[in-house]
């Protein structure tokens, strides 16, 4: 990770707003500013896609009904586009079918305009928190992966068998090497992975999968 990236990621969250109505956008930006949140607003999905997403935790406030691409359609496309921002829907007239669809696709909240400001702010807070956790998780797994990649092929096999609960003797038999070799590789694995115990190692293995 570069230092510049870390500077932005230094936890200044960004709320992205996509709504076709300018007044709604301006009002939302102002509301968010009044509680100290940074917002970036866009008039359409296309406009949003043409600007890069910052490397910072955030969430997306999305209008359902927009000319061009609707919010619901865009939500379904986001995974294929590799955008993982949590989504909060706002809509002029939501029906049950719409909200069920949105929630099933992982939306944080589905609010009907005009909404209570606290409801929106709560949802945004929740969204940012979710994104922050997700990002932490991601960087943790990528660290683990780096550690795992530093293991030798022999050590990887031993690690796999250890987390399956095999004894050194069994591992030795299975791999056709001496028990001493297994012991050596095993301690190497523990050291290189920074694992304090076998339980620790099992947890890391789960995360790597």
């Amino acid at each position, binding site marked *: 990770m570069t230092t510049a990236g870390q500077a932005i990621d230094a936890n200044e969250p960004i709320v992205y707003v996509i709504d076709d109505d300018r007044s709604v956008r301006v009002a939302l930006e102002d509301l968010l500013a009044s509680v100290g949140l940074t917002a970036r607003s866009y008039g359409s999905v296309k406009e949003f896609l043409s600007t890069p997403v910052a490397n910072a935790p955030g969430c997306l406030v999305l209008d359902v009904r927009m000319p061009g691409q609707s919010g619901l359609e865009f939500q379904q496309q986001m995974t294929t586009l590799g955008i993982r921002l949590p989504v909060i829907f706002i809509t*002029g007239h939501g*029906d049950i*079918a719409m909200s069920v669809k949105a929630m099933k696709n992982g939306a944080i909240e589905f609010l009907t305009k*005009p909404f209570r*400001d606290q409801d929106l702010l709560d949802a945004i807070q929740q969204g940012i928190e979710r994104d922050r956790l997700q990002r932490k998780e991601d960087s943790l797994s990528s660290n683990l992966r780096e550690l795992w990649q530093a293991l030798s092929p022999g050590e990887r096999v031993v690690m796999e068998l250890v987390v399956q609960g095999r004894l050194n003797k069994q591992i030795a038999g299975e791999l056709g090497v001496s028990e001493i070799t297994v012991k050596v590789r095993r301690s190497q694995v523990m050291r290189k992975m920074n694992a304090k115990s076998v339980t620790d190692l099992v947890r890391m293995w789960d995360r790597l999968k």
Partner: protein
Amino acid sequence: MVSLLICIFAADTVTNFEIAFAVFYIAVILIAVGFLSARGVAVLASICIGLTVFSLFLTQRGSFEAGLLNCGISTCAIGITTYLALKIVAAQAAVFDAQEQFARMARLTRLGELTASIAHEVNQPLAAVATSADACRRWLDHSPPNLERARQAAERIAVDARRASDVIVRVRRLAKNEAPHRERVDLNEAAVEAIGMAEHEIERNSISLQMNLADDLPSVMADKIQIQQVISNLLINAIEAMTGVPSFKRELTISSSRDEGGSVVFAVADSGSGMKQSTLDHLFEAFWTTKESGMGIGLTISRSIIEAHGGIISVTSAPRMGAVVQFSLPAAEEKQA
């Protein structure tokens, strides 16, 4: 046209039996199709045939047998022409009816779209107003209060409120052009026409249709098209409510009656899956729908139409018991005898 008729008759009578002048009566019939009713054309055709036969007896010259034969040919020609001409006219009328029906459907759809777009147009500035008001309050709650940002928010509120009211002004102007239209309407007749429009859907969904229309129904003062729109809405809802039940259980019952207060009551009952109380509570709210593709304005529009006519619309239903939607309209005063 009468002079043409006389000319042909005279020519037919004066000329020999061998000359079948009577076939020219066809021209008279073809001309008459343009402005006479079907019955009128039929009467004219029989007059023409009568004249043909009459002139057979008046004609002095030539062979009587040839005359008889020619008279037969002319009579056949007149008959066939009349039959074909009337058939064409009927086909044209059917096409015209279908066009009118289509135009009516299109108008209903447009009305729905219009309402939806008005609601959206008004709701957007209202949402902005509400959000700006929230922001304004929050700027004032800062310590010290951020008066400049609060003032900006207040200004936005004023602008957006004006925008919302502009939409209302536009709608009102639009509505003014359409004066309420009231005429004496036979509800049964209006219903049968509306059902006719939905017949295809009823058949396509293998729904069995039962009609219990009261004979001695007083007429109501109403805008027939609007009332038919309500009935169509109810029928469509009923048909769609039954898509979830097996086809042998799909029953649509349409009834009309008179209640104790003298009002005319019209009801549409389906055998669909019915509704819970929580659904019933929202049924007449605009943009509230249980349908995947619905706008949620059918019943809302229906209620505003019925209420504008001084009537009442209501729904009763229970889960698995189907639903009954009924509306009542005040009966029109008896005609002066």
